[in-house]
């Protein structure tokens, strides 16, 4: 059997395996979330100022919150199987619509952050490893340590103070200019302008991680027997580094990037909050406090699907980075 059809079969198999995993996640999330005191009706009524018990009973009935938990779960699962994520009680809108609305700002921030963090992380790690134990290496290590240890919200606020208030280079927050409402190409530029500070803030943390990882991974590979063999064959150091060592050293970094895609959705809550970026993390955070369980379950479902999918993609990238790894 040739390689590509092997990969296709592998993908199909993994996808089928993913279904029970995702269902199990849904069921577990459902019970975990229901452990929290109070429900969406309590929050809505609390915000409204006051509401009669009859009114609250009626709302619970309308939302289906008056039924026993197993029944609620069965109803939810039935809907999920039909690809219906239900309605958000708080927003009074279909969950799918709310999530899709927030998905693209999330993806925008996530992709730009990963590209920046992984790209620069690999470069810096590589550079540090090549210049091992020189001042350049030390500088990079110190930089990585500081960015890794600094709390994200503080970095974000400092960015705003430095680059938005002291120097009028970037807007403080938001995704678009809400006084101007640009259209077309101007809108793209405007969004890119708003994207700069949150991306830098969020990627600084991950950048440090990838730099240190890449450096360690390079050093480990340098010690391997195949490097000695390559040197004995008379290859140049440049060729050894970029063709042999680099490709092998990338494997753990790619693994890490794959794992972190999932974490980025939730982990960006702080950055989304500081920069008022309308992403999924913030939506999940708010729905937790509003006890908007349908919406929360929908977000969790999406992120579990995303993690399963990204892991699959990472496994396939392995095959290309290292032909010795085979799918089966």
């Amino acid at each position: 059997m040739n390689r590509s059809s092997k990969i296709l079969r592998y993908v199909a198999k993994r996808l089928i395996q993913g279904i029970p995993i995702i269902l199990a996640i849904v069921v577990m999330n459902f019970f975990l979330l229901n452990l929290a005191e109070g429900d969406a009706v309590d929050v809505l009524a609390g915000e409204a100022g006051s509401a009669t018990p009859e009114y609250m009973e009626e709302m619970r009935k309308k939302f289906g919150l008056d039924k026993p938990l197993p029944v609620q779960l069965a109803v939810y699962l039935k809907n999920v199987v039909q690809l219906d994520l239900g309605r958000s009680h708080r927003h009074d809108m279909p969950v799918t619509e709310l999530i899709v609305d927030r998905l693209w700002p999330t993806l925008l921030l996530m992709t730009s952050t990963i590209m920046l963090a992984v790209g620069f992380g690999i470069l810096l790690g590589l550079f540090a490893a090549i210049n091992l134990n020189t001042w350049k290496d030390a500088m990079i290590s110190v930089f990585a340590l500081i960015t890794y240890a600094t709390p994200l919200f503080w970095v974000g606020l400092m960015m705003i103070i430095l680059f938005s208030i002291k120097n009028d280079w970037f807007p403080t927050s938001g995704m678009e200019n809400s006084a101007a409402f640009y259209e077309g190409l101007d809108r793209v530029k405007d969004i890119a302008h708003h994207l700069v500070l949150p991306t830098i803030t969020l990627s600084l943390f991950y950048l440090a991680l990838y730099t240190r990882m890449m450096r360690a991974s390079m050093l480990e590979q340098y010690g391997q027997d195949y490097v000695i063999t390559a040197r004995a064959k008379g290859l140049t150091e440049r060729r050894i580094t970029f063709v042999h060592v680099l490709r092998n050293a990338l494997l753990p970094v790619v693994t890490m990037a794959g794992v972190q895609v999932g974490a980025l959705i939730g982990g960006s809550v702080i950055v989304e909050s500081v920069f008022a970026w309308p992403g999924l993390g913030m939506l999940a955070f708010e729905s937790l406090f509003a006890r908007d369980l349908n919406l929360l379950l929908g977000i969790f479902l999406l992120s579990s699907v995303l993690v399963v999918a990204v892991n699959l993609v990472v496994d396939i990238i392995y095959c290309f980075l290292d032909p010795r790894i085979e799918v089966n």
Partner: protein
Amino acid sequence: MKLPKFMNAVIMTAAITMGGSAVQAQQAGGSMVFLVQPEPPTMAGYVSTSGPIGLLGPKIYDGLFDYDNDGKMIPVLAESYDTSADGKTVTFNLRKGVTWHDGKPFTSADVQFTIMEVLKKVHPRGPNSFKEVSSIDTPDAHTAVFNLGNPAPYMLRALSAYESPMVPKHLLEGQDIKSAKLANNPVGTGPFKFTEWKKGQYIRLDKNESYWKEGRPYIDRIVGRFIPDASTRAAAMEKGEVLYAAYNAVSNVEAVRLNKEKDNISVTTDGYSMINPMALIEFNTKEGPFTDAVVRRAISTAIDRQYMIDTIFFGYGNPATSALSSNFAATGLHAEMPHYPATGDIAAANQMLDDAGYKKDSDGVRMKAMFDLIPYGEDWKRGGQYIQQVLGEIGIDVELRYEDVPTWLKRVYHNYDFDMNLNYFYQLSDPVLGVHRHYGTNMIRKGTHFVNSSRYSNADLDALLGAGMTEPDAEKRSAIYMEIQEILARDMPVVNLFELEFLTVYNTKLKGAYGSAMGAYSSFADAYLD
């Protein structure tokens, strides 16, 4: 300086005329971006009195009247009203030529439907405000006659766009009002029309070109922005990205700093007198350590209210002196009561507890209690810590508990599983609207939020509350509320701490937005950008 009444009238008229001629100088156009915090769940101000809805709703929906900063009624959808001699019939003469944003005419049928079918049935406070309204007659399209069971003087204080928005009958009739589509696609008669809601970002309203008031609104567009982080909100204000932030959306500490450092940023405490917020402690009077009124009086005596205001709220607030806010003094419904020392008296409080036989043990502790704190931010945590310290000095050892909103609401208003609870209530524009719910036996309602969670019940007080509600004579009413305040200062099921002063931070570029007693909950029809 005291002027004769007619002189006042002359000056007022002159001021109005001058105000009118200044209109030419006011510029039309521009976008006004302001902070809305947090993002509202919907825009159904006729179902929910939630704060962020109040910031946007009154720009879209009009009320029958608005109120100026002195509490005077300003005609909006009603041009005038007339109360019958017995106080049981109130006739509203409605403005002619008003249309809804979808072009349909606004008529007395809308008023009738709004009050009888919407506010009286699904609004959180409407059943109270319009309790006495038994029916509404509509002799013609521009006259609405309210028939009351008893006189209800307080009703005229609840006609603002925030408290009682007028909603379109043709878009709600025959539907389940709580789940009607109107909630997310509001259609009103107000100066601004709803255009777009980008969840997590902003709500955009555009000028209503056919607004009934000639030449208004001045501003082309109002955008309410949601910024979750408090420091970023202050930064956006500092940079001029947003021009207006009310209800402490910019925290006191930042507001004071911006006011001092920036020439173009100013603060005001105006615009909250109809809301009338009061910080307080609710006690569980049925179970636990605070069933004895002596202990509650001692706690009220010990707390240094001025200290709390100065150190935690940056000096914004006034010490409470009674169960009723001093803002009610204008209508003769406020008097200073005992056990409300502004600066606290630890020795007197200790003495009260000693005399009542509460002995200190070897650690100096008379009793232990759990103290729940309203989960609305750091200020309240600090307030709780201060009170914890003071109570320690009078031998009451309290442990603080800070939970998230739904857990806290359930604990206090559903399970009654608390000893004492730090909170704040809106006393609103009349005690009937904002205060009765806290003390009446009929307001002990399990599962309803912000009512009588102390489960305090006193037949004498109930009778007085009933009398205060229907008494049309101002002097007699004042006497009734005097007695009410005396009973509450003695029994203290709730200890009032201080009258909160919320801060509105604004960019001086925004003008004309400060004339209404409703403050941020007003229409902004007269606002303009300089």
